């Protein structure tokens, strides 16, 4: 690898200030540090530093997303074959078909998002933040597979510019960027984000089997078609229509395991959000109100985007509560809100996205009260002595 390192060192002056390509410094630096961890040594403070860096942190999240991506690709093929009555596809066929459908979404998401990141890093004179590597993978996984690519591009641009960069870039944003992209599409092009057709590849264009419905469990529940809902087993495994990465609870749990073991994702949020939703579901089971309140509470955990949102969205450290106590409160409230929106809101079948975005806004307030309790403890010490 020495020749590569030599080449990079050789090229570096051209990209530095005053060099011919100084406007591309961020891009150059991004690629150079991708290939080689730089030779910078500590200058101030601690003389040794942990081997962990932001690249590794983000890589772990991407690895955790892989099971959901792989199963999601397979499921795209599976749902397509069911809708169009194709019976001779093998698992590999289905995966291959699905992956080729998902790949353009990933490419568009990364090209548009990273393009904006590169430009803003150059303007700010920062190194490129790795945060978008995760966001760029999350976005395709929470989209319907048939979403037009130009819409995806617009929503990514909106999310990165309005959702993140105007607040000061990675680490400063208030709303989860991936969910901002989804919410933008949801409200701007509702036809492409709801209904029975968008969740299965090719259904919008027509030609499906007679009487085939591509409805997700959530939209069935919303219309009180409880009898048509898939079995809990199917919902848990994920062989149901839905956004690309959200259907398989098993795949998401593998990701959750990776995040929790490495300490990159907060188990506190995952646990409290699950308990919050389950508790709210049980409460509704007990009190009643409408027919929707009577489905088994645990259904909520395996339907729609709840599992995906809990593991990958609500836990985003930048937009979630930052104190440990705050995380429990934030998680529980998010879980409760998901169920309330699902069951009582007449317009939106899914509550996860809106619940998380809403609680993103409240997270700093939750932290404020938690930190204030610490301040009060400190002040009380003065009074008692």
């Amino acid at each position, binding site marked *: 690898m020495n020749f590569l390192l030599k080449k990079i060192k050789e090229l570096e002056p051209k990209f530095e200030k005053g060099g011919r390509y100084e406007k591309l410094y961020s891009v150059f630096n991004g690629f150079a540090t991708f290939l080689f961890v730089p030779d910078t*040594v*500590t200058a*101030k403070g601690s*003389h040794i*530093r942990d081997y962990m*860096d*932001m690249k590794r942190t983000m890589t772990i999240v991407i690895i955790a997303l892989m099971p959901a991506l792989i199963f999601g690709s397979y499921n795209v093929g599976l749902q397509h074959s069911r809708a169009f009555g194709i019976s001779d596809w093998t698992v590999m066929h289905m995966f291959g078909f699905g992956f080729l459908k998902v790949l353009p979404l990933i490419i568009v998401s990364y090209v548009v998002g990273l393009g904006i990141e590169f430009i803003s890093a150059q303007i700010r004179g920062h*190194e490129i933040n790795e945060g978008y590597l995760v966001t760029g993978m999350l976005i395709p996984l929470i989209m319907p597979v048939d979403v037009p690519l130009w819409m995806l591009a617009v929503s990514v641009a909106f999310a990165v510019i309005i959702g993140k960069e105007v607040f000061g870039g990675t680490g400063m944003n208030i709303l989860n960027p991936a969910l901002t992209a989804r919410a933008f599409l949801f409200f701007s092009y509702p036809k492409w984000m709801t209904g029975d057709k968008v969740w299965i590849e090719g259904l919008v264009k027509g030609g499906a089997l007679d009487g085939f419905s591509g409805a997700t469990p959530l939209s069935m529940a919303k219309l009180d078609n409880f009898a048509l809902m898939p079995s809990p087993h199917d919902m848990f495994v994920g062989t149901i229509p839905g956004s690309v990465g959200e259907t398989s609870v098993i795949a998401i749990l593998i990701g959750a395991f990776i995040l929790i073991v490495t300490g990159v994702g907060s188990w506190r949020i995952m646990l409290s959000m699950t308990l919050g939703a389950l508790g709210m579901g049980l409460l509704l089971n007990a009190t009643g109100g409408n027919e929707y309140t009577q489905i088994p509470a645990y259904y909520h955990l395996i339907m729609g985007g709840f599992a995906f949102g809990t593991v990958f969205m609500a836990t985003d450290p*930048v937009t979630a509560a930052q104190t440990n106590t705050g995380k429990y409160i934030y998680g529980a409230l998010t879980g409760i809100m998901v169920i309330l929106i699902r069951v009582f809101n007449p317009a939106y079948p899914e509550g996860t996205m809106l619940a998380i975005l809403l609680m993103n806004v409240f997270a700093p307030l939750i*932290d404020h009260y938690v930190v204030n309790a610490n301040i009060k403890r400190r002040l009380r010490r003065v009074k008692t002595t």
Partner: protein
Amino acid sequence: MSELIRLRKGLNIKIAGKAEKILLPEVSVTRYGVRFADFPGLTAKLEVKEGSLVKAGSVLFHDKAFPEIKYVSPVSGEVKEIVRGDKRLLTEIVIEQQGSEKIDFGAADPLKLSREEVTEKIMNSGLWPLLRQRPYHIVARPGRVPKAIFISAFDTAPLAPDIDFILANTRGGHMQAGINALSRLTDGKIHISFDNEGSRVGEMKNLKGVEFHYFKGPHPAGNVGVQIHHIDAVSKGEVVWTVDIQDVVALGRLFETGFHDRERIIALTGTGALHRKYHRTRPGASVSAILKGNLKDDHQRVISGNVLTGKKISPDGSLGFYDNMVTVLPEGDYSEFFGWASPGFTKFSYWRAFISKLIPKKEYDLDTNIHGGRRAFVVTGHYENVLPMDIYPVHLIKAILAEDIDLMENLGIYEVAEEDFALCEYIDPSKSEIQELIRHGINLMIKEMN
């Protein structure tokens, strides 16, 4: 007597390069130095010029704000150089040792002296800077009586010397006299903390006039700031003092012999040093004697102090005023191909994101590479895992960044020193300079309060 205080938060960095428990005799050194960076916040007024002749105990400079706080020469000789850095800022006073003349400040039993007399003797002898205060972790300001004095009798920092071994080899038996002197300076208690009950050796067994405490837990349990937080925390308006355990001996030596003599034992550690043992020396002494022929190669970093909080010095630089160890560490200026993606069999980490967590080794070779690039704060919930205090580190750091004085005060700036945040800095995947920030916050507070 006192119950065991268990701390779960913190981290022992498994770095290779501990010193063998062998004490080498003092090697003669002629170059001594007093570094101004050892005293944050100090504005010094020089009392010597290049060429001045000094004795051990002669005043070199004093604090401009508190002229009674004097800083003296550790040895007799000639002021060889007054080193200045950027903007003519004083960096170091270098003294070439000649002879062994020393000023006699007069022996006396501190218990028979008044508080004012004890204070005066310590100040005249140049030992006052051994007393440091919280808040701010600076040299104790005269005029305030501290509510208590804290001494840590163990060091948990990476590769830290074994204090029991040091105390067992300390000459003179002046500890009790030092405690007696301290007892004249406060109306409160003198607290000494040990890492477990069995570790009270030598003079420690029969020490009188102190309260013993026992801590169990990973670094930074040995930091006196952490101990204060759990024994009797500093609140707004309160002041406590801290003294290094070997400096208690130096105080005692002053009162029993009348001389300024800070002879102490330090450990030479780190994988960059070939022979790692304990040395008898004194603060200010050039480390060249103990490093001579002892460096692995010339690509090593010499640190006075430990790897988390120490200061980088040249191989002939002087031992810091408060340091009890010298660490030699390989410089890490290499580029690692796809380093961020490697499984990390040999990479020690706080994070469970490396194979090394599954097949742990006892010790790891670490170097000074920063292992990444500077980023904004992203990760949460981990900094508090290595700070055993009821303090929200990230919120305090952000209050400092915002220069919000009230918030800093409310979030506990009075209780902390940069060394308490060293582990937060170590584990930070965003590679922020947290210790420097904390000192910046403390400096803002000092300015605001004056």
